[in-house]
């Protein structure tokens, strides 16, 4: 448990660890010794917050200094693609998605208690991983000569990388759910 707590704390931004790390650790000790929750339940909360609160803080920290730079780059790409016309429609669409995402990410959204429905939907992530994996397989089957074309190679790599990321999230959420339900 102590190892889990130490590893979970590393998921939080350095500034948070420095200011609240000792108190955060002390509070988990209090939860284990004084509350009616079992150690397994407390471990579940710690792991769940690593996937939600810690990621949320990391994302906010990342977006604070880079948001303006990324917005300017995406806006420049969108403008260039607009001038180039229909040939660059995919680039334009991508730049618009990035711009919209940056606006959403820029909102100072509150940190909320871990919603059990997040872990409840772990299988959505696994289904997404399976879909991305099958897409990669499909590319290999369709363009499965001795050597893949560059477009097929990029699609295959992207789909399997996505599958790996989605699977890791799904497994993490599933494990958290099992830990949280085990009292």
């Amino acid at each position, binding site marked *: 448990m102590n190892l889990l707590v130490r590893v979970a704390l590393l998921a*939080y931004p350095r500034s*948070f660890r420095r*200011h*609240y790390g*000792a*108190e*955060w*650790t*002390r*509070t*988990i000790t*209090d*939860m284990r010794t*004084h*509350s009616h929750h079992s150690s397994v339940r407390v471990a579940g*909360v*710690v792991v*769940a*917050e*690593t996937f*939600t*609160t*810690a990621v*949320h*803080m990391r994302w906010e920290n990342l977006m604070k200094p880079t948001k303006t730079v990324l917005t300017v780059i995406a806006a420049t790409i969108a403008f260039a693609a607009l001038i180039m016309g229909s040939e660059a429609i995919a680039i334009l669409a991508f730049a618009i998605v990035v711009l919209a995402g940056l606006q959403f990410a820029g*909102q*100072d959204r*509150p*940190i*909320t*208690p*871990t919603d059990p429905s997040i872990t409840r939907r772990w299988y959505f992530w696994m289904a997404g991983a399976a879909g991305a994996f099958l897409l990669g397989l499909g590319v290999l089957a369709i363009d499965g000569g001795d050597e893949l074309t560059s477009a097929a190679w990029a699609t295959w790599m992207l789909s399997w990388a996505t599958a790996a990321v989605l699977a890791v999230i799904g497994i993490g959420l599933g494990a958290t759910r099992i830990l949280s339900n085990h009292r």
Partner: protein
Amino acid sequence: MVKRKPNPDDIDSYLPLPASAMHIIVALAGGEKHGYAIMRDIDDLSGGSVTMGPGTLYGSIKRMIDQGLVQETDERPDPALDDERRRYYRLTALGQRVGAAEQARLAALLNAAQLRKLGLSGLT
């Protein structure tokens, strides 16, 4: 709902408060507390339906300190009996005003729900 940037001269700019922030304000309305005491109070107040983990708690407290709603206190009840890792928090005057404004907002919402017999219609 698009929220404005919080401005101490405009209490409404803090509203609606996130549920976690309002829970912390209500917990601290009873006096200054350390993190685990806040967490336990929230658990009691909500009848166990809201379990706030330490990451959420300190993330929210950090944000509320940045917004001037909460402050750390230097005083400790009894240093000999207490762990030095614990910090104590209390509401600021702004935090109290924002909490009162959120209470009024929630009361108005509850009143509207009662006037429209939301509970009764939900049972049929």
